[in-house]
């Protein structure tokens, strides 16, 4: 995570949790990056990442996903896991970023 920051890469996370819940979680886990609250799942829907009825009491939540977006706002890499337990690793993101830098540099 520090390495991402050192390379000028920002991290932000989105879920349906409230800002209050996110405040508690970021304090508990020591997160320094923004935890963004999308209680109506509007942005989650915009990204087509809605997992209907998978939350508590059949609530709609986000399915896990990771995107690498370059400074011009273009998506450069997407990870849509097919298993909730399996997430992208920071090293993977860094590899993609390194490749992205080396191709855009020249």
């Amino acid at each position, binding site marked *: 995570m520090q390495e991402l920051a050192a390379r000028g890469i*920002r*991290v932000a996370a989105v879920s349906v949790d409230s800002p209050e819940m996110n405040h508690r979680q970021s304090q508990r886990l020591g997160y320094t990056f923004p935890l963004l609250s999308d209680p109506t799942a509007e942005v989650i829907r915009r990204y087509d990442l809605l997992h209907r009825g998978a939350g508590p009491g059949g609530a709609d939540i986000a399915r896990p*996903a990771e995107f690498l977006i370059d400074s011009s706002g273009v998506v450069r890499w997407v990870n849509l896991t097919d298993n909730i337990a399996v997430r992208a690793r920071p090293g993977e993101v860094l590899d993609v970023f390194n490749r992205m830098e080396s191709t855009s540099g020249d």
Partner: protein
Amino acid sequence: MTKRTWNWALWLGFALVVTGFLSYTVFFARFAATRDFPWANLLLFSAGVVLIVTGLFRAFGKSRAYRGKVSGPILSALSALLIGFFCYVFFYQLREVPLSVGAPRPGQTAPQFTLRDQNNKPVSLADLLSGSKAVVLIFYRGFW
């Protein structure tokens, strides 16, 4: 009649199965190597099953020497339930994720948004992108 020996293999086997069941969330899910595929848990389950089968052979085959005719079937059934439930959750339920065919793909522009952060401050994608080389945007299920 001589006192029959405690059938430890049954109980140790059951303990391994319980450990295999509980250790995924509390321990093995923390490391990528044991999280992406539950090798460690399946290994614990296998060792547990071998011991339970050994215990059952002792309980029923050498019933004069070993105890476990009652506890054996009970522990076996409980173990089967735990292993079955674990496999159901890991190999079926966790894979029940939407395909998200409409999600932004490489080369497409990421949809704009403005959402409140943990300090109730509005943050937009443009804010995140300004002054940074790239943004890793993570969507997660949430803590609720």
